[in-house]
C-alpha cells in the first residue's frame, strides 16, 4: 500500500467518526431541558400554536425518525433555522466563517514562524543561555491567558501605535491583514510554547541519531544539516502537537474573537448560547467538531507525506 493508500484509508476512517459526531450533537439537543417549540412561540402562545410548531418541526416524531431526518438535512447542508432571526443556520455560519478561517490560518502561520526558529535554536543551544531565555519566554507565554494577552496587545500596541484597529474585521485585503494580526498573535503566543517545547525535544532526539553522525562525517554542517537532515525528521511530533493545540485553540477563538470584537464563529457561538438559540448552537458545535476532525486529518496526511516510512506502518 502506497502513501496514497494511507491517505485514502485515513479519509475512510473519518466517515464513521463524522456520523458519531452528528449523533452526539443531535443527542445533546435532545436531552437539553426545555421545549424548543415553547422557545419559538413564546410563553403567551396558546396550546394550539405550540402544537402547530411541534408538528412543523416534527418534534412529535420518534427520536430515531428525527435523527434520520437530521442526518439527511445535515448531509444536504441544512442545519435548521435560527430561533432568533429565522435565518438558516448555514447562512449565519457562512457569514462568519471567513473571519475565523483567517484567524486560525494566520494564527497557525505565526505559530510556525515563531516556533520553528526558537525550537531549532533551543535544541542546538541546549542548556545554554539562548535555550534558557527561550524556555523562560515560553513559560511567560504559557502563563498568560489569551483574553489577557489580547487586552495587553490592544492597550500596548494597537492603541498607542494606531497601526492596528482595536476591533472589528476589515473589508479589503490589507485591512483584513491589519485587523487579524493582533488576534493571530494572541493565538500564536498561547500555542507557541507547546510547539517550541515539542520541537526542541524532537530535534534533540534526532540530533543523537546515527544518521546525523553520517551526515556530519561527509561534511554536512550548520544550516544545511538542520534543513536537510534534522527538520523533516523532527517535524512529525511537532505537527501532531500543533494539531492538538489547534483543536483547543478553536475553542480559544471564542475568547479571542470576543476580546477583539471579531464577527467570527466564536463570537457567534457566544451570542447563540446566550440567546438560547439551540439550532445555531447545534450548528456551531457541529462545525467546530468537524474542524477538529479536519485539522487532525490534515496533520496525519502531512506527517505521512513527510515520512516515507508511514506506508509500511499503516
Amino acid at each position, binding site marked *: 500500500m502506497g502513501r496514497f493508500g494511507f491517505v485514502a484509508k485515513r479519509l475512510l476512517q473519518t466517515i464513521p467518526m463524522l456520523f458519531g459526531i452528528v449523533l452526539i450533537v443531535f443527542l445533546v439537543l435532545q436531552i437539553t431541558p426545555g421545549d424548543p417549540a415553547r422557545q419559538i412561540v413564546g410563553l403567551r402562545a396558546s396550546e394550539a400554536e405550540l402544537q402547530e410548531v411541534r408538528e412543523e418541526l416534527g418534534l412529535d416524531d420518534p427520536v430515531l425518525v428525527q435523527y434520520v431526518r437530521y442526518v439527511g438535512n445535515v448531509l444536504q447542508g441544512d442545519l435548521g433555522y435560527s430561533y432568533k432571526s429565522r435565518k438558516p443556520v448555514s447562512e449565519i455560519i457562512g457569514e462568519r466563517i471567513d473571519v475565523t478561517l483567517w484567524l486560525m490560518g494566520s494564527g497557525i502561520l505565526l505559530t510556525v514562524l515563531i516556533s520553528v526558529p526558537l525550537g531549532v535554536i533551543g535544541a542546538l543551544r541546549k542548556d545554554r543561555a539562548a535555550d534558557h531565555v527561550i524556555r523562560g519566554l515560553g513559560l511567560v507565554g504559557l502563563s498568560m491567558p489569551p483574553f489577557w494577552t489580547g487586552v495587553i496587545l490592544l492597550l500596548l500596541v494597537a492603541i498607542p501605535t494606531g497601526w492596528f484597529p482595536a476591533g472589528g474585521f476589515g473589508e479589503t485585503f490589507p485591512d483584513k491583514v491589519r485587523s487579524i494580526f493582533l488576534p493571530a498573535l494572541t493565538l500564536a503566543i498561547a500555542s507557541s510554547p507547546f510547539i517550541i517545547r515539542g520541537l526542541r525535544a524532537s530535534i534533540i532526539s534526532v540530533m543523537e541519531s546515527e*544518521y546525523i553522525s553520517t551526515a556530519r562525517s561527509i561534511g554536512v554542517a550548520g544550516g544545511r544539516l538542520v534543513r536537510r537532515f534534522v527538520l523533516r525528521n523532527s517535524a512529525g511530533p511537532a505537527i501532531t502537537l500543533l494539531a492538538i493545540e489547534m483543536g483547543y485553540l478553536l475553542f480559544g477563538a471564542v475568547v479571542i474573537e470576543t476580546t477583539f470584537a471579531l464577527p467570527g464563529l466564536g463570537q457567534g457561538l457566544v451570542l447563540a448560547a446566550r440567546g438560547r438559540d439551540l439550532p445555531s448552537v447545534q450548528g456551531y458545535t457541529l462545525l467546530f467538531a468537524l474542524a477538529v476532525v479536519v485539522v487532525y486529518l490534515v496533520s496525519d496526511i502531512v506527517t505521512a507525506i513527510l515520512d516515507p516510512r508511514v506506508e509500511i506502518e499503516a
Partner: protein
Amino acid sequence: MSEHILEVRDLEVSFTAHGQTVTPVDGVSLSVTRGEALGIAGESGSGKSLTLKSIIGLLPPNATVVGDLRYALDDEEPIPYAPADVHGHGISIIFQEPMTALNPTMRVGDLIAEGPRIHHGLDKKAARVKAVDLMRQVGIPTPERRARMWPHQLSGGLRQRVMIAAALSTEPSLLLCDEPTTALDVSIQDQILGLLQELRGSLGMSVVFVSHDLAVLGELCDRLAIMYGGRIVETGPVDEVFADPQHPYTEALMTSVPSFDATAEQLRGIDGRPPDPRAFPPGCRFAPRCQYARDECRSAVHELRDVSAGRTTACIYPELIQGVKR
C-alpha cells in the same frame, strides 16, 4: 612524504556522570600507514568503537577526549587536526547498522549526492549523476532506479552499499569501518568485505576496521591491534598474530572462534566477564581472567614492548603462552 597517514598518541576518552569519571579508552596509541588496512579487535566495551569515533570526532557531546591526533592530507607530514576539519575531507566512516545510519527521510541518491554537492560544488543535476556513478561503483544494480528509493525500501546489503557510496563520495584517503558487516547475513557479509577489499585496492585508501570478529579482520587487514579494557594489548601483522599470539587475551580470543576442525575441547569461551570501565582491575587488566597470570601481573605497568620487528605486546610473560592448538 611521511609513511603515516594517521597517528594517534595517548588517546583518552572519558565520560563524567554523577561525579564519577569513567575512561573507557585509556591511553591508546596507534598509527596507520598509507594504503594499509589496520584491524582493531576486541570484545564489546573494549573501547574499539570509541577509539574509531574519536578519530573522526563523532563522539557524543558529553565525552571528553584527550590525546594527540595527527592526520596527513595530500602527502604531507601528519599534523594535528580538529575533527571538523576531516569531515568530508580525507576521512570517512561507515557504521554497523545501515538502517539507522541512513537518513530515513532522504532518498538514497540525494544522500550520496550531498558529498559532491558540498565539496566539489556540483549542481544538483551533476551531483545526481555522480551519485549514480558511485552507486554503480559499489555494485548496486540498476542504480538510476534505486537512487530514487528511500532507505527502508532497500535490503540490508544494499543499504550498506549505499552507506559505502556515501562515505566514498567525499573521496577519502582513510576509511573507518565500525563493524560494517556485523548486522548483515553471512553471505552478504562476504560480499561487503569483498567490495571493501576491492575498493581499497582500486582507490588506494587506508582502512581502519573495527570488529569483534577475527575471521573478518583476517580477511581484510594487514595489521592487527588487539584491544582489551580500553587499551591496546598487542599489535602485529595479521598472519604473525594469528600464528603466534603474544598476549594471552589474543590467544583466548582465537580459541573462542569456532572452526570446522576444532573439537569441543579446543573451542573455549573466555572465563569471567569483560572488565567494567567503572572499576578496571589494577595492573594488567586481563590478569583476573588470564590462565597464566602471576602476582607481578596484578601490579604491572601497562606498556607496549617490542617483541620482534613490527610486533608489540603488553604482556610481561609472553613466553608462557602455549599457542593455539589446532
